[in-house]
């Protein structure tokens, strides 16, 4: 479904991605883990075309993403951003229905609003929040609205960028469960970026660890504790001592 072959991306002298190879099957929930600044978000942005890799190839559904029609390509995706990235000036329901109110997937306003309310209900929010502005919501509620927006147009592929960052452990658990349920019931392909191990265990079918610009380890989540890779072992157990250099 999604294949990255030798993808490289640098920012000046900082070689963030040094040749990423990764395959994500249709309907699979892949979680990419790795320390801060290892380029996890850059991987997502390269797939979406928000950043252009210097080398390598990215294919989605067998098509080279650099050669496809952007609108048709992006219509297949939904994305939950790290800080939700809700549009401040629009009420909640218009944030959720953004894609349904304009462009190729435009629907009548009443229908778009009805879909937005349904998606809000799916993420545990009632119609009373529909007319509020994002700034009037708590961080957890904003995350839910971001999730509702990501699934509003029933995308085939959903990206989650640090979905639990900034949330308390209980709310993080709720968001993790919601993501897992929604991905399963929609049959969507999901890619999640996180360094929260509770998210990994709740969301992932497969896990890939990014380290020093390359995929260090990839495999089923059930094998993560017995992988025997010292880097992965240090990361998932949160140890300061180990092969991954840490600033102290």
């Amino acid at each position, binding site marked *: 479904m999604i294949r990255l072959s030798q993808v490289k991306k640098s920012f000046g002298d900082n070689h963030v991605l040094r040749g990423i190879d990764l395959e994500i099957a249709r309907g699979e929930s892949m979680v990419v883990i790795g320390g801060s600044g290892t380029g996890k978000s850059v991987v997502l*942005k390269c797939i*979406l*075309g*928000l950043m252009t890799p210097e080398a390598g190839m990215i294919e989605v559904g067998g098509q080279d993403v650099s050669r496809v029609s*952007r*609108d048709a390509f*992006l*219509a297949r*995706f*939904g*994305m939950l*951003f*790290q*800080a939700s*990235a*809700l*549009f*401040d000036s629009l009420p909640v329901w218009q944030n959720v229905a*953004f*894609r349904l109110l*304009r*462009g*190729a*997937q435009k629907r009548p306003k009443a229908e778009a609003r009805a879909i937005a309310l349904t998606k809000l209900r799916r993420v545990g929010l009632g119609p009373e929040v529909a007319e509020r502005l994002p700034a009037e919501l708590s961080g957890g509620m904003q995350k839910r609205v971001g999730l509702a*927006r990501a699934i509003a147009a029933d995308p085939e592929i959903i990206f989650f960028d640090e979905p639990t960052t900034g949330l308390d452990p209980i709310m993080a658990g709720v968001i993790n469960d919601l993501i897992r349920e929604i991905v399963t019931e929609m049959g969507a392909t999901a890619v999640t970026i996180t360094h929260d191990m509770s998210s990994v265990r709740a969301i992932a079918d497969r896990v890939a660890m990014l380290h020093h610009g390359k995929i260090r380890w990839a495999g089923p989540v059930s094998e993560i504790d017995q992988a025997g890779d010292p880097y992965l072992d240090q990361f998932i157990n949160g140890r300061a001592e180990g092969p991954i250099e840490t600033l102290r």
Partner: protein
Amino acid sequence: MIRALAWLGRLTLGLIAALGRMTLFVLEVFSHLFRPPWYPREFGNAVMSVGWQSLPVVGLTALFTGGALALQIYSGGARFSAEAVVPQIVAIGMVRELGPVLVGLMIAARVTSSIAAEIATMKVTEQIDALVTLSTHPMKYLTLPRVLAATLTVPVLVGIGDVIGIFGGYVVGVYRLGFNAAGYLQNTVDFLEALDILSSLAKGAVFGALAGLAGCYYGLNSARGAMGVGRATKSGVVAAAVLILAANFVLTEVFFSA
């Protein structure tokens, strides 16, 4: 010596590169005028924000400037017994120069700063990336409506500012300096020519476009964090103000070089 030359070379190359980036940006913005989809609701919101909501500040600026201009011309004219030219000079000064320039600078302060800060904040909070993932081109959704609204509404603001500025001069002239009310108005109308008004409105359109473009350009090219937003806002306002003053000189030369 070599170091100084190298520094000069880097500076020149940097300036040329910046000019190139800005030119490409302007061309891209206006190319979207002819390529759907368009966002009329965003355009309407921008018209309200740039035009309607700028009216109070534009009106007050013009009113006080017109009044002060009348006082200055009266006291300055008194040195060579030319107090009677107050209506004519207020009219020509407001319509040809002060109206467009002051409105342009007020728009740079109020609108460019607002556009740059809003778009820069959207950039650092990933709202621009979110727009792209929602199949919406930021140039079409954010930039074109704002630039178009500024280009079309600032001439109207300039026209209104000209009228209010002349009214400010009229109030001071009639109630403070003792001019005959009907005579003041007659002199104003008789002295102004169509070219004066045309140049004023044309300057307004150019200044509006520059203010909108500067706000969008610096907003979209903002660096990360609060400092990035602050720097984008400051740079947008400074660039808009300098470009407006430079364009004013060029347009004055074009319209009025004898």
